[in-house]
């Protein structure tokens, strides 16, 4: 069976939060109540729960889908410096002590 990913349509999603309630193993909520989905395929043991979460979404923003070919392609080219990624999660700076 194909491995499936959980995907959120960010435009449709309005942060009802049922997905995080039904599938806390994979979905958490950000500070504003919008889902953060753990990357990668949904483990087999959670597939039924994932399907339930998909059905429960009141705005049909959640779906299970095969991993995108595009994302594989993008990953493949990522080693060549093709798309600049903003250093967003790289805020490592700390205020110096006693400055």
């Amino acid at each position, binding site marked *: 069976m194909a491995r499936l990913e959980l995907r959120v*349509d*960010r*435009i449709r*999603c*309005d*942060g009802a939060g049922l997905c995080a309630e039904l599938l806390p193993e994979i979905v958490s909520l*950000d*500070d*504003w*109540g*919008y889902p*953060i989905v753990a990357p990668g395929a949904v483990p087999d043991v959670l597939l039924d729960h994932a399907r339930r979460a998909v059905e429960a979404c009141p705005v049909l923003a959640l779906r299970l889908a095969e991993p995108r070919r*595009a994302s594989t392609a993008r990953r493949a080219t990522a080693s060549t*410096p093709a*798309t*600049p990624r*903003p*250093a*967003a*999660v*790289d*805020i490592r*700076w700390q*205020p*110096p002590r006693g*400055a």
Partner: protein
Amino acid sequence: MNGPILPRLLAGPPLGAGTESLADHVARIGRAPVGGPWLVDELDASGLLGRGGAGFPVGRKWRSVAERPAGPAVVVVNGAEGEPGSAKDRALMTLRPHLVLDGAVLAAETIGAEVVHVYVGAEHVAALRTMHAAILERGAGWRVPVFLVAAPRGYVAGEQSAVIHYIEAGDARPTTPYRPWERGVDGAPTLVQNVESLAHVALISRHGAGWFAEAGRAHSPGTALVTLSGAGLRLGVREIELGTPLGEVLDSAGVDRDALRGVLLGGYFGTWARLDDGTAALPLDPVGLRERGLAFGAGVLTLLGRDECGVDATARIMAFLAGESAAQCGPCVFGLRALADATARLAVGRAEPGDLGRIERWAAMVQGRGACAHPDGAVGLLASSFVAFGDEYARHAERGDCSATPGPAMAARPAGAAA
């Protein structure tokens, strides 16, 4: 072709003379050849990278539309230029509209498009008028229908999927990511290309890939238009060879480097660089800057004076970008607003305990969670400000003080998004 390498796009009559007519354009550089598969090869060989900001190889983009299985295709000429620090696209459209239109015709011929949409920011009135006149000037020379589309004002209106969405449905908001080169306007494979990129194509079609690469660097060939502004400088567009050191551009513009604190490279989705000993040597090209964690973007160089504060400037940009969210995706709507407000509190020296940590956490939280790259661009800019002005953030957070505008001047600062 011999002669000086610069200018290329801005060659011809003096810029003060205004729009170059079709007759003058043809008399100066001749007619463009007819496009076809050969041009895709030529573009590949030229190494031309898109000049709209993302720097995607133009040849590869054209090939993906040209080699579609079957059916119609669409060309979109992107002159939205919603980037506040950029004026180069409208300068090009106003001064050399026929270079842009040559590029559009070549694109239509090469990919076999059935229609061309020329998408120009409605606020760029002179550019819109010039493009209108230039399209009419070609009279019956058009072999495909051409539509001039006035793009609504807005930072995201020039985003690829927003452009297509507006042309299709009159709604310039981005849509869930898809691949316009497979399914764009009305479902047809669509080539969305920045006006400057098309103008380069117009010249490459005449002079060849080898000529193009005589300028610039091996990894970023050619010339590019840059927009210089800030620190009291009148906004100006100039053409540079890619790879030109930043210091050289500043010197040629008569900017006193000692009067500068930093420079915003690329635009509001770009990166801050602090002016220090090494900054003058920074090579202005997409690859060279990326190797240093910086952005060339759309060629924006916005200067920050010594008497200006990097934290404050960043707070203003964040407030702008939060306001420019298309308001479709929750993490963008709420995340950018929260980030802008926290940055504004820091800027005016009224940070709440933990604001620095909060910014860090929210930035990571927002990253990659919009339908388009708007939140990612904003967060990238913010992250770069921490790298460039880290000590200033500390001073603002811990002492409520600013080295650029100390004491009362800081308190008098408009509180931006925090208001």
